[in-house]
């Protein structure tokens, strides 16, 4: 009995001592980037996954025709070394790099892209992002099973290294969409070997099976522990690649994250805990990063409800919110007050703003709508998914509306799936929402408010708005396109089926030895450019 007890305690003590893992100093010497990556990814199949966590790993393993320019918002050549766009903008010829290969040494061909695009457009695969290719001629029809013959879709391999793409209409942001992982190639033989083109549950992305074409290949995947990738010696750009590998840690707890960073187990701190932001900003100004992010936090208004269908009411609700106060005193994460739906960027698109805090004007609009001082206005419900942050903002806005307008609302928090269900069924009056653009273009925001789009969810429809968004698509030049988006945005911010609250920011820490990591609005940092220096 004694022996058993003693041996149990020995086991206990041994297993209590911490496990050996790489620290940043030895990782720097070995050229291995240690990344805190939020949560465990849903998977690594570029055609199946959605989400930021997955994106950060997928871009290490795979490479599309174009990639995000690390220093700006445009794209640069990736698997394609060049392309020629026809004068009418409807045909693009991509020249793939002669030395672009798969990790097993197979040449990366134009046919591989045709196969991969067929896969993502195959309805039975159930991909979330087929619309990234809807700009391609007949792609949408194929995905919706209106046509069965993929030969009719506008993508052809002219030879093994030349890909011809025909577009439905001119799509200026198409090259940006090609930097999105949904359009990346997958290795046809591997896919066929694991259940075929429409199998979403196969094991082809496991380390022992995966063949990829990106700068790194998958080495190890331990659920909830680590994902390790190492250099792909068949990558065309291997000579310029400075990192030897990356370890992605799924740490979904901010406090653990913080401990990892402070104890030198990661090169970055994914999110700084709100209460530590001020401290870190002061103490580590060179590691502290606060960057604009291409996302907007906003409230949806159900315009199908009688009182809320009145534009004056919606204007009053919006004008009574002091956004500066919300970002300063409530969210405190360096967010920027939002006065437009599309996040502004000085050098590119600066949407018109007219949403300043003006309680007096707000009261006037409410009186015009027939509810002076809020009299006779029904008590509405504000819906949000259970989360402390959403709750604090909702409480602040509840106070603004009560104090400035005399309007009472009740706060209702529900579980995430119930929230989504109620929103898409239109069973809400006002609800909180957030949107992150998939590519830096006003289209990735403004298109969703077009009449009857699945993500509109407000019941709002404005013919003139629709026509401006459409005109932007067909515009002859960039300036004309942006003017049309501006006009659409102006209508949106005048009618306010959605009330923007703030523009998201990324607040994180990054060690000084990480070089080649530049700020950009999509928070994408291609690993081809990153190096570790002392």
């Amino acid at each position, binding site marked *: 009995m004694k022996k058993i007890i003693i041996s*149990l305690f020995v086991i*206990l003590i041994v*297993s*209590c*001592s*911490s*496990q050996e893992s790489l620290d940043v100093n030895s990782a720097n010497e070995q050229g291995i980037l240690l990344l805190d990556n939020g949560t*465990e990814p*849903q*998977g690594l*199949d570029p055609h*199946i*996954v*959605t989400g930021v966590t997955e994106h950060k790993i997928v871009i290490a393993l795979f490479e599309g025709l174009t990639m995000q320019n690390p220093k700006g918002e445009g794209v640069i050549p990736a698997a394609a070394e060049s392309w020629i766009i026809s004068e009418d903008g409807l045909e693009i010829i991509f020249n793939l790099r002669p030395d672009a290969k798969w990790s097993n040494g197979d040449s990366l061909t134009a046919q591989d892209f045709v196969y991969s695009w067929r896969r993502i457009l195959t*309805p*039975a*695969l*159930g*991909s*979330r992002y*087929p*619309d990234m290719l809807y700009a391609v001629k007949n792609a949408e029809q194929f*995905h*919706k*099973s209106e046509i069965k013959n993929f030969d009719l879709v506008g993508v052809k391999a002219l030879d093994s290294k030349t890909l011809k793409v025909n577009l439905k209409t001119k799509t200026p942001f198409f090259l940006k969409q090609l930097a999105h992982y949904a359009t990346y190639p997958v290795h046809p033989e591997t896919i066929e070997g694991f259940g075929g083109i429409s199998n*979403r*549950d*196969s*094991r*082809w*992305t*496991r380390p022992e099976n995966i063949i990829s074409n990106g700068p790194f290949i998958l080495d190890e995947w*331990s*659920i*909830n522990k680590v994902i390790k990738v190492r250099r792909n010696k068949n990558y065309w750009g291997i000579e310029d690649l400075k990192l030897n590998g990356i370890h992605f840690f799924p740490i*979904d*707890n901010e*406090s*653990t994250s913080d*401990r*990892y960073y402070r*104890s030198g187990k990661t090169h970055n701190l994914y999110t700084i805990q709100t209460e530590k932001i001020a401290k870190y900003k002061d103490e580590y100004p060179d590691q502290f990063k606060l960057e604009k992010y291409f996302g907007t936090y906003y409230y949806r208004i159900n315009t199908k409800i009688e009182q809320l269908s009145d534009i004056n009411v919606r204007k009053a609700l919006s004008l009574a919110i002091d956004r500066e106060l919300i970002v300063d005193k409530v969210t405190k994460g360096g967010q920027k007050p939002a006065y437009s739906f599309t996040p502004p960027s000085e050098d590119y698109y600066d949407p018109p703003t007219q949403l300043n805090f003006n309680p007096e004007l707000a009261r006037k609009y409410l009186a015009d709508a027939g509810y002076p001082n809020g009299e006779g206005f029904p008590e509405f419900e504000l819906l949000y998914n259970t989360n402390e942050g959403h709750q604090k903002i909702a409480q602040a806005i509840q106070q603004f509306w009560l104090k400035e307008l005399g309007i009472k609302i009740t706060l209702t928090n529900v*579980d*995430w*799936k*119930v929230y*989504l*269900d*109620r929103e*898409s069924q239109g069973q809400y009056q006002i609800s909180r*929402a*957030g*949107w992150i653009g998939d590519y830096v273009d006003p289209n990735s925001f403004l298109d969703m408010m077009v009449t009857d789009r*699945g*993500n509109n*969810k407000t019941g709002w429809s404005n013919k003139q708005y629709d026509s401006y968004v459409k005109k932007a698509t067909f515009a002859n030049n960039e300036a004309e396109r942006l003017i049309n988006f501006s006009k659409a945005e102006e209508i949106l911010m005048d009618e306010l089926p959605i009330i923007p609250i703030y523009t998201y920011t990324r607040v994180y820490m990054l060690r000084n030895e990480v070089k080649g990591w530049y700020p950009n609005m999509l928070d994408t940092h291609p690993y081809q450019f990153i190096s570790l220096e002392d």
Partner: protein
Amino acid sequence: MLIVISATFFMVHAAPGGPFDDERVASPEILKQLNDTYNLNDPLLSQLGNYLFNAIQGDFGPSYKYPGRSVSELIFSGLPITMELALYSILLALFLGILSGILASLNPGKLLDHLPMSVSMIGICVPSIILGPMLILTFGIWFEILPVSGWGEFPGDKVLPTITLGSAYAAIFARLTRGGMLEILAQDFIRTARAKGLNETRVVLYHALRGGIMPTIGFLGPAIAGLFAGSFVVETIFQINGIGRYYVQAAFNRDYTLILGISILITFFTLTFVLLSDILATILNPRLREKGSMN
């Protein structure tokens, strides 16, 4: 077991929202495809039938949230952690519980009786959902001496979860041991042993404890089963990636197959451990054995 599976099955399907709802709404065509792929458009009864048919053969289906991962795979990645947590907690509970139970029984009505018994009363009354955050606040945030989340990532991060999960059972074991010991200590053979001049330690630890520990042994089975259920709360508080946390997340994600898989596992554990502790009690206690043979 069948009842548990069926009840869980109908409850998870009755909850609003489905596994494929997301902020970025998928088109109706995509949703229909996804539901078709996983047979979610079939009548519920036929889905249940299919599920049971596969489950009997050991196939608990794919996870909806993690495509390409099977439910069994996810469970096996989390199970060792949950088992480790349960093991430490039960060891801690037994050690503390039996020790303070013995102390109390040797000093009935005195301070050494009242003190451990009052503490254990608090232990029974304060649920882990309150105790956990209290420990985090005290040791993690005020004194900053112990990590407040994770498992096996930083030295000492196993301490707080173990205490949180184990303490309620330590309290119960203490009371059971005290009761059992008091009963035995009053019996004739103990007086005989003392009269023979055996030293007190030997009397208590060898003669008395053998009988006095019986109530604790009897409760061991339900306790271990309860620990697995308790780990749901503790793993969530301390962000430990065991099956308890998977279960809670699966419920939020409407990952039907994962919820069912873990429910089956927990039911199986509960039944097994209750049975095992009955058997153990029979082996250790001759009286139960005789009763058994008489039947």
